[in-house]
Each structure stands twice: as structure tokens, then as C-alpha cells.
């Protein structure tokens, strides 16, 4: 569904991502783990159209999306929930969700979104008219994911969804990821919380200093988690 081939991204002369190749299949949950500064966010942001790569190809559903504007890419059904949530704080919760629905270009009705919220994001229901900036961090993260899901994307990219959340909220967010995956959404999850992400994902990639240094299925990676830990902890 998503094919990233030899993707190289540079900020000035610094290469943040070097010839990264990875794929996410239909309905698959794939994690990308690695230390801070490894290029995880760069990877997602480039796929979402925020950076133009120096080299490489990105195909979504067989369509080349390199160089397409972010608003077009989300229109294709590939949604990014960026690091730090970036909900619209001055807008109400309902308005945030309505924006998400508009991104779906008619794929979802207002009724679909209401039902989605009731089923998967019940904490948001009673806050419809509240400015989103008043929600707690965990609620804001749920809103950020709900906003992306309101467009009924075919694939969801999550950048550090657990960052800065209280432990209970971290559990809730990971539980949400599992549920969305179980419902058939393809997910590309970027996390510093490596062990947790790897144990949820069907497959994982380990990114270090801009390069993919390891790839494997859940069992393989969990088996040699000790080595993987040294791969992503050591050196840097």
C-alpha cells in the first residue's frame, strides 16, 4: 500500500534520512523505532509531503506522491498525526473533527464521525463545544487521532503518539492504535517507546542515524530484543 524506496532527505548539507526503503501492506501495522534524531519524524513528514526528498520514491496505492502538496496527499487517504498533536486549540472539538471530515472529501458523513467518536473516542463526546486547547494532553492526542480518522483514511501515520503523556494515557493511546488496526486501518507508527511499539506491530524497522539498520517481524525482533536494544541505544 505504501512503498518507500531509497528515500534520502537532507536539511542543508545534513542528511536526516539516507536511502530508507520500507513498505506497509494493506491492513498492516508497521512500527519504525529508533533513538531521538534518527530520522523517524523526517520519514513521516516527507511521506506526508512536508519535505521534498533529495532522492528516492514514495508510492501510495501505486501512485507516485513525491512532491505532492500535503493537502493532496491527505486527500488520497494517507493521513499524518504529527508529533506534538497540533490540534487547533482555538477551535472547538467539534470544529477540529469537522475539519478532519472535510479532508475526506465526502468519504464520511457527519453521522459517521459521530458514530466513530462514540465508539472509539468516547471521552471527546461531552467536549464537543469546548475549545480543544482546554483538553488534557491525553484527550488532545485522542482528538488528533480522531480528527485524522474522521476523514476515513486508508492509512494512518502516527508520529510519537505517546510522547509526553501520563502512563495511563499512554496505555489508552496504544490500545486505540490496536483497535484501529483491528478494524483494518493500515498504520505506520513511529515511536521512541521501542519495545512497546515492536510488540504491537506486525513488522518493525529500526532506524539509526538516518539509516534503516534492522527489519523484521514481531517475533524475530522481540526474540533478539536485547541486540536491538544495543543497536538503538548504543553508538547513536
Amino acid at each position, binding site marked *: 500500500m505504501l512503498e518507500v524506496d531509497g528515500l534520502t532527505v537532507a536539511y542543508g548539507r545534513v542528511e536526516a534520512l539516507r536511502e530508507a526503503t520500507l513498505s506497509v501492506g494493506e491492513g498492516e501495522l508497521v512500527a519504525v523505532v529508533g533513538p531521538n534524531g534518527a530520522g523517524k519524524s523526517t520519514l513521516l513528514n516527507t511521506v506526508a509531503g512536508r519535505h521534498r526528498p533529495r532522492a528516492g520514491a514514495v508510492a501510495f496505492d501505486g501512485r507516485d506522491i513525491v512532491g505532492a502538496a500535503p493537502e493532496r496527499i491527505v486527500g488520497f487517504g494517507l493521513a499524518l498525526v*504529527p508529533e506534538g498533536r*497540533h490540534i*487547533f*486549540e482555538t477551535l472547538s472539538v467539534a470544529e477540529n473533527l469537522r475539519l478532519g471530515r472535510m479532508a475526506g472529501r465526502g468519504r464520511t458523513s457527519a453521522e459517521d464521525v459521530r458514530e466513530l467518536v462514540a465508539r472509539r473516542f468516547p471521552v471527546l463526546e461531552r467536549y464537543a463545544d469546548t475549545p480543544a486547547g482546554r483538553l488534557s494532553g491525553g484527550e488532545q492526542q485522542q482528538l488528533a487521532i480522531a480528527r485524522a480518522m474522521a476523514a476515513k483514511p486508508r492509512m494512518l501515520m502516527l508520529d510519537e503518539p505517546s510522547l509526553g503523556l501520563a502512563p495511563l494515557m499512554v496505555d489508552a493511546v496504544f490500545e486505540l492504535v490496536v483497535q484501529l488496526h483491528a478494524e483494518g486501518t493500515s498504520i505506520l507508527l513511529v515511536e521512541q517507546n521501542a519495545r512497546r511499539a515492536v510488540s504491537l506491530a506486525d513488522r518493525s524497522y529500526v532506524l539509526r542515524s538516518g539509516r534503516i539498520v534492522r527489519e523484521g517481524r514481531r517475533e524475530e525482533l522481540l526474540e533478539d530484543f536485547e541486540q536491538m536494544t544495543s543497536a538503538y541505544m548504543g553508538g547513536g
Partner: protein
Amino acid sequence: MEDAIQLLVDAVSVGAQYALLALGIALLFGIMNLINFAYGELLMIGGYALVVLAGMWAPLMVLVSIAIVVVAALLMDRIAFKPVRRADATTLLVTSFALSYLLQNVAIMIFGSLPETTGAGSGLARSIDIAGVVVSRLDLVLIAVAGALIVALVLIVKRTALGIQMRAAAEDFEMARLIGVNADRIIAVGFAMSGLLAGVAGYFLVAQTGSVSPTFGVSAVLIAFIATIVGGLGSLRGAVLAGFALGFITIAFQELLPAGLVPYRDAFVFAVVLLTLVLRPQGLIPQTARAARV
């Protein structure tokens, strides 16, 4: 009593004019961090459009001149600002200054530097007598039109899908794009609305002064800019509020100052502005969510 009502009409009329001007600036600042000093030249373009169109049936002339200003605003975006859209706020500001001087000089080349007189709006010049209160038709029309425009704008921004997209873009432009807001379209809408406001405000300015010159918009845009800052940069409500406040203060000084000091009225107005900013540096309605970006 009649005097008080006349003064009130004056104050509301001046305030409405300032509010229209300030909204045009605040709108674009909100969406793209642009303080468009070339906004004054939109007023000027509207003014010269009225000069050129003289002789046309008045209502049609007004509509055509406003349409010309809207098109000019869209061209400004496309030609001058789009190429530097990703640059920082300083670059945008300098671009708007350059554009402003360029357009003033183009106007000098075409029309000369002396003011052109025009009869546009003279149909509104007569005063009418309502139960002993004499007010100018121009003031009443200005108040009605500005009021309607402001209410319409508020409803669009608050209620419609377009308005939600505009507010989202104003708060976090990058994220708005990630959630499907078309950057080109939303900025073009902002410029078009700004042009509409400039077209209307320009018409009333011409109707009041009866002439247009290449620097016609300069002092108006200064007032608009001040109202935008006092209101809290980027806040539409703040811009309207500050526009009306400036209008009221201006008329109040006009009336209350001793005759010898009236020529220095604007100095007193600006002293109040300074004092306001000392007391409320973020403006009347601070935009807390965006503070970090400015």
C-alpha cells in the same frame, strides 16, 4: 441632545470606516502572518477606478470598482506574495513595502502626482433631517454597509466550513494543510476578502474626500495598522473593536479639545494608543495560541 446624537453618528461612522480598514489587515495577518502595507494601494486602486469609471451609473460603478480591487488583491497574492510565502514575516513585510511604493509610482506615472477629483459618492453628500437631527446620508450608508459587511464576515468566519478552515490556517498553517486545507485557496480567499473590504472602504474614503492621489491610501492604512495592533494582531474581533474605539476617541478629541489644540488631534489619539499598548502590550484581545509564532 441633537448634538450628542450627531456626534454619536459621526463617531460610529468614523469607527466603522476604521474597523473595515483594520479587518482587511487583520484577516491576512491571521492567515499568513502578513502585514500588508500595500493594502493602502488597494484603496488607491479603488479610488482611481472610480475616477476612470466616472459617468457610469453610480451603483454599477461602485460594484465594478470593488470588483477591480478584489482582482487587484488576488493579483498581489499571485504575483508578489506567493513566491515568498514560505519566507519569514520580515520578508513578507518588506515585500509589502516594496509593492506599496511600486504601485504608488505606477499611479504617478499614469495619473501624475496631483490629486484627481471625482464626483463619485456626491449623491450621498446631502444631509438628511431626522426629527431635528441632521446627519449626512454618507454616514448612514457607511454605517449600514460596514455593519452588514462586518456581521457577514463574522458569520462566515464563525459558522461556515470555509471559516473553520480559515481559523485553522490562522492558528497552525502547516497542520491545516496536513488536514486537507488547500493553502493556495485559503490564502486567495483571504486576499479576496481583504480586497472586498478595501474596495468598500476605498469608495467611502473617496466619497468623503472627493479626490484620489497616489498616496491616497497611506494614512488610512496607518490607522488600520494601528487598530490591528491595538486590537491584538490577528484577532478579527480585536480589529473591529479597536477600529471603533479609535473612531470614538478621534471624534471625542475633535469635540473636547480646546480650539487651539484641535489641529493636534491625531497626536492625542496616538498618545491614547501608546498608553493602551503600555498597559496591554498584547492588544485588547491577545491571540495567546499564536504568540509563539509571531
